[in-house]
């Protein structure tokens, strides 16, 4: 039972290249007291601890408004989703929020079928995600 059908076509090359078998995490300060976390690569059971640390550090430093840019993420599994959910819970305790930038149809589909689309703000571009933070 495939609940959501992705109709956009993307190439096998895009989805199937195996490298980097890692994620890159880059944090930038944005307007107000928010930060943008740029991710690229694959967020899986092996790489998600790195993301968890990066988000945890930001929150420890008092940054509670986050945009997490998933545009260059090719793959995310439940451990990656768990890290995002955990981060959202923590910033909400401080009145903050997490907006995601996501354009990859396969990754959008995962947020759709898991219902996470209802707890995260999901946007097509960073500007929209930042504007919606406040």
């Amino acid at each position, binding site marked *: 039972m495939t609940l959501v059908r992705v109709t956009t076509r993307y190439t096998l090359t895009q989805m199937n290249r195996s490298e980097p078998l890692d994620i890159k995490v880059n944090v930038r300060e944005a307007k107000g007291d928010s930060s943008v976390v740029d991710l690229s690569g694959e967020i899986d059971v092996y790489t998600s601890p790195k993301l968890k640390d990066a988000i945890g550090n930001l929150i420890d430093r008092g940054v509670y408004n986050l945009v997490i840019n998933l545009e260059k993420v090719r793959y995310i599994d439940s451990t990656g989703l*768990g890290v995002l959910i955990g981060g959202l819970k923590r910033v909400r305790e401080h009145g903050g929020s997490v907006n995601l930038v996501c354009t990859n149809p396969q990754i959008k589909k995962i947020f759709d079928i898991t219902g996470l689309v209802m707890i995260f703000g999901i946007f097509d571009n960073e500007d929209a995600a930042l504007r919606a933070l406040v």
Partner: protein
Amino acid sequence: MNAPAHRAAEDVVELRIPAKAEWVSIARLAVSAVASRLQFSIEEIEDVKLAVAEALVHAIARGGDRIDVICESVPDGLRIRVRNFGLPTPEPVNEPTADEAAAGNLGIFLIRALMDSVEHEPRGAGEADLVMFKRSPS
């Protein structure tokens, strides 16, 4: 491994990896390649890839020392058996954090959502199979 003799070797690709997070990406690649060879669409390949990866993540969380991923082309689709070896017996009652439990449930939910059928087959001590099926592209 040790597939029953009646099973035609030409239809089976098996991968055995240590039950460790760093080897999951190799299983994803291999399973994607098998599904691609069997003419599944890009979206279906992504579904199978994520479902198998979630089964491995689940298996790794349960402990155990190695995992076999057995991909079988059957007339109506692709059957993938994820077999755990060396599970701790009796299985320890570990207390996952709320976040870990949420992620684990998401994983099992995703397997069920992305595949056409999922069955859990307990085996002898320390072993367990999760058998997933994806219907052939029509």
